[in-house]
């Protein structure tokens, strides 16, 4: 118990990055994630790391490109409008296969929108907001402890696959405090990075980090390699939490804050004799297609209900996985509004009564 600390989600991300061996942070402040920068401005000093407030989000993502290209573990963080600015960098990083970790603590849009929680950047982060055929590995936590462990894991996944990992949280997850158990020592994996442009430390070999390939044959080769890497990630890295699925008649799909609300709904519905289960994708890409399509085939399942803080984004992936086998309903709120437990319960009751 003694090493339990009460932390904000944003602080947990920052401390986990340090524990994962990240010694370079480049960022630009924006609500609701500024505590990450605030925490690291102080913490990086303790560990002889680099904290740099860049002149813009665009500069910060390109500093990530440079430092991670030299083989370092690097973090940048922002919130929705800032993440939009970073999209060119995302695509370049994908093309150059630079292991990077980017945090997006989402606020509501579009445009400058507002500072309250939202999940409107699912499309942007999961489907690719930059140009070209690329994928980000996207991790979504629904609590502070999980945010801590996923952030640590993000650095390993980034290094293992030479991919950009997005930690996608809504403002609630970033702002809330929960107990976190911080490990004393971490068995940090050290990844060999023979490709890194680290100043010829490995001998007289010239390394180039780039995403430009004028020869179409070579560029198609890169694309094919990226795609086979993405298939490997889809095969190996899906993470998902399920609960009460066994005899569920209604299955809620939700990530982040919405999954937390869903857990209360499941308890309440059970009291009324309605069996509701939950599928909570932790990796938004790779998406947990298999468990959803398996569940859709079950006779006990009447319908799916997808809950999001947007106008309907992840629901498209849920529908693809359900593939017409069951009805998929959607309930979402936008603009920083959050659906109440009662509001969702009403929909659940309606579905249970056959009215959908």
């Amino acid at each position, binding site marked *: *118990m003694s090493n*339990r600390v*009460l932390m904000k989600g944003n602080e947990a991300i920052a401390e986990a990055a340090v524990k994962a061996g990240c010694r370079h942070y480049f960022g630009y402040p924006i*609500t*609701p994630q500024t505590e990450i920068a605030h925490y690291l401005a102080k913490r990086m000093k303790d560990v002889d790391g680099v904290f740099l407030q860049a002149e813009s989000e665009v500069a910060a993502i390109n500093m990530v490109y440079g430092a991670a290209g030299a083989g370092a573990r690097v973090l940048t963080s922002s919130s929705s409008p800032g993440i939009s600015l970073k999209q060119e960098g995302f695509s370049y990083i994908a093309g150059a296969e630079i292991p990077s970790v980017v945090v997006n603590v989402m606020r509501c849009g579009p445009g400058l929108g*507002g*500072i*309250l929680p939202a999940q409107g950047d699912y499309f942007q982060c999961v489907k690719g907001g930059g140009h070209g055929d690329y994928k980000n590995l996207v991790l979504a936590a629904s609590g502070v402890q999980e945010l801590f462990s996923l952030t640590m894991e993000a650095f390993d996944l980034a290094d293992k696959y030479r991919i950009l990992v997005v930690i996608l949280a809504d*403002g*609630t997850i970033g*702002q*809330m*405090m*929960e*107990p976190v158990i911080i490990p004393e020592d971490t068995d940090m994996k050290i990844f060999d990075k023979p490709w890194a442009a680290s100043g010829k430390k490995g001998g007289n070999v010239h390394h180039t980090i780039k995403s430009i390939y004028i020869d179409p044959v070579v560029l198609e080769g890169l694309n094919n390699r990226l795609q086979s890497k993405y298939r490997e990630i889809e095969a190996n890295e899906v993470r998902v939490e399920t609960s009460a699925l066994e005899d569920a008649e209604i299955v809620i799909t939700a990530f982040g*804050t919405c999954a*937390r*609300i869903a*857990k*209360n709904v499941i*308890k309440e519905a059970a009291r009324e004799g309605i069996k509701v289960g939950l599928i909570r994708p932790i990796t938004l890409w790779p998406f947990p297609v298999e468990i959803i399509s398996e569940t859709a085939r079950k006779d006990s399942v009447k319908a799916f209900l997808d809950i999001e803080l947007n106008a309907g984004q992840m629901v498209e992936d849920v529908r693809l996985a359900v593939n017409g086998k069951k009805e998929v309903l959607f309930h979402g709120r936008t603009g*920083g509004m*959050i659906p*109440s*437990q*009662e509001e969702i319960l009403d929909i659940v009751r309606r579905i249970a009564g056959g009215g959908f």
Partner: protein
Amino acid sequence: MSEFSIIISGFGGQGVLSAGRMAALAAMLEGREVSWLPSYGPEMRGGTANCSVVISDEPIGSPLLSSCDVLIALNRPSLEKFEKTVKKGGTVILDSSLVEIRPSREDIRTIAVPASDTASENGNMAFAGVMLLGCLSGNLNCYNRDNFRKALEEILPAKKHDLIPLEMEIFDKGYHYV
């Protein structure tokens, strides 16, 4: 206890977010599950600030509250705004030095604590929240005195630790307030 949901609300600057954090930390030190969620929206600038705290013996579902077991109101707008969210049989703890009205509902319990007056008579008006947290502890037992003291030691910077005995004195006054 099994699960308590608490909304603490007042003007920005009254320390409601810190008060919530102290309650959550004290309960965590007692080995419980806790969550703390601030209102970080535009209402904080010049208007009311509030936070939601859940204290439970089991893993906590949603940290967002659409209803609560306890409302701690440090000003009148907070009482007016959140009175309806208190569950039937729930409790309102209000600072009667600042809130001149009382809840209109009869299905909830009201504890009126002259927190700001008591705190300023004892030397520091900023400790009004501490008295209300003492009242919460005394009446609803979601954390004990020792753990509250430990929470203060953890949250306050070392240079303010000399204030802890006074804060605990005010906490005790609230603790015995029924």
